[in-house]
């Protein structure tokens, strides 16, 4: 369980989070919807201690987060964050080095673990490749593998479908399912209503710096009010099946 209590955070003059009370239950898929700039990424970064709130508390597994070095190390091993753009996340030169980056920093040197994760993501044959020569899809897989290699309890996904086509979105959907099957709790921030509703057990909406809605699903009228994506409803009137 990850919870926040009256979380407040300013960036310069702007109140990004203005008293957020958030709950994500362990074992459930929680989706945080919100328009561009609503503070979704800022909220996620509080969950693994990359940001420290101005006031309020973050609870992970029932305990309040502490901000000394040892507690943060422990927290970041338990809560993995997958960035929106894999280019921002791949820090090591080769695939193998990047996947092993987190575990090695944590002092864990288990080659078998790395090999297992690499093969789960179909990267066994790519270990020596340089990250910058990978395709977009391969980079995404490496970034997911690098986070899973730390064997986290929670995985935070920031706009996981940004820039992906249908095939890519479906793959991310399957990945989310595999997380819950493995007992890992995913928390997803997105403005992509189609994707988010497909995977969500619980839906929350972040707007104006607070949690503005919570439920099992998101009514269409709300998606529109929150400026989320639903272009497709208005437009797609073409008949189906008229071409093989």
């Amino acid at each position, binding site marked *: 369980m990850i919870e926040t209590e009256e979380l407040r955070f300013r960036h310069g003059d702007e109140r990004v989070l203005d008293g957020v009370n958030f709950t994500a239950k362990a074992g459930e898929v929680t989706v945080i919807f919100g328009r561009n700039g609503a503070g979704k990424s800022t909220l996620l970064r509080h969950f693994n201690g990359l940001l420290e709130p101005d006031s309020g508390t973050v609870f992970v597994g029932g305990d309040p987060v502490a901000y000394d070095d040892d507690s943060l190390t422990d927290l970041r091993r338990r809560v993995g964050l997958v960035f929106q753009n894999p280019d921002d996340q791949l820090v090591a*030169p*080769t695939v193998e080095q990047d996947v092993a980056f987190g575990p090695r920093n944590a002092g864990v040197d288990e080659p078998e673990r790395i090999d297992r994760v690499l093969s789960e993501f179909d990267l066994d044959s790519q270990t020596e490749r*340089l990250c*910058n*020569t990978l395709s977009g899809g391969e980079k995404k897989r490496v970034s997911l593998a690098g986070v899973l290699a730390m064997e986290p309890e929670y995985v935070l996904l920031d706009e996981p479908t940004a820039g992906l086509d249908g095939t890519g979105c479906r793959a991310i959907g399957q990945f989310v399912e595999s997380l819950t099957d493995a007992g890992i709790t995913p928390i997803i921030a997105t403005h992509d209503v189609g994707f988010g509703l497909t995977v969500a057990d619980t839906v929350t909406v972040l707007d104006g710096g607070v949690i503005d809605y919570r439920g099992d699903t998101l009514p269409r009228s709300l998606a529109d009010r929150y400026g989320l994506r639903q272009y497709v409803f208005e437009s797609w009137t073409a008949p189906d099946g008229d071409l093989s």
Partner: protein
Amino acid sequence: MHIMEGFLPGFWALVWYGIAAPVVCYGTVKTARIARDQSMTKAHVAVAAAFIFVLSALKMPSVTGSTSHPTGTGISVVLFGPAVTAFLSTLVLLYQALLLGHGGLTTLGANVTSMGIVGPLVGWLVFRSLRPYTDLQKATFGAAVVADWTTYLVTSLQLALAFPAEPGVSGVVDSAVTFAGVFSVTQLPVGIVEGALAAGLMSYIAMS
């Protein structure tokens, strides 16, 4: 390690501008000539300078308490050679003064001489003489360490010339030894850390 704005008396500020100017002009002309070629455009030159600038913003393991920052000129001279490095370093030092308050405008000539010209040149000579006998990584390590140490020795000499312990050559030598000795506490380990960074970087670049 840069000399602060206003630290050198006018005479010495001018002297170092006089020494740096022809070399930087030569480097500029040479870089401009390369940039007319399609393979390395103005955009490439600019990004190379930006890369060296940003290297100095990297977090490095702390030595003796304070955080240290690589100068990047060792890496630059191995990648681009001494003439281009003289030009790039001038840009980098200018922006370090204007964006970070490191170094200064009146001391730019002195800082370019030590960090952009003499240090990289000696580092480059070390690289060229080591390269036939050892691998790229070790040669780069040597070049970066020597470039860094030379830079700080030249800076010590520049300060000593401006502030001799007593008039005459022996006063300058005394001062230089004092400055070099005191700065060595931080600069010797910083040079080695920078060498390790440069060597690691070059080995990755060689892979790609």
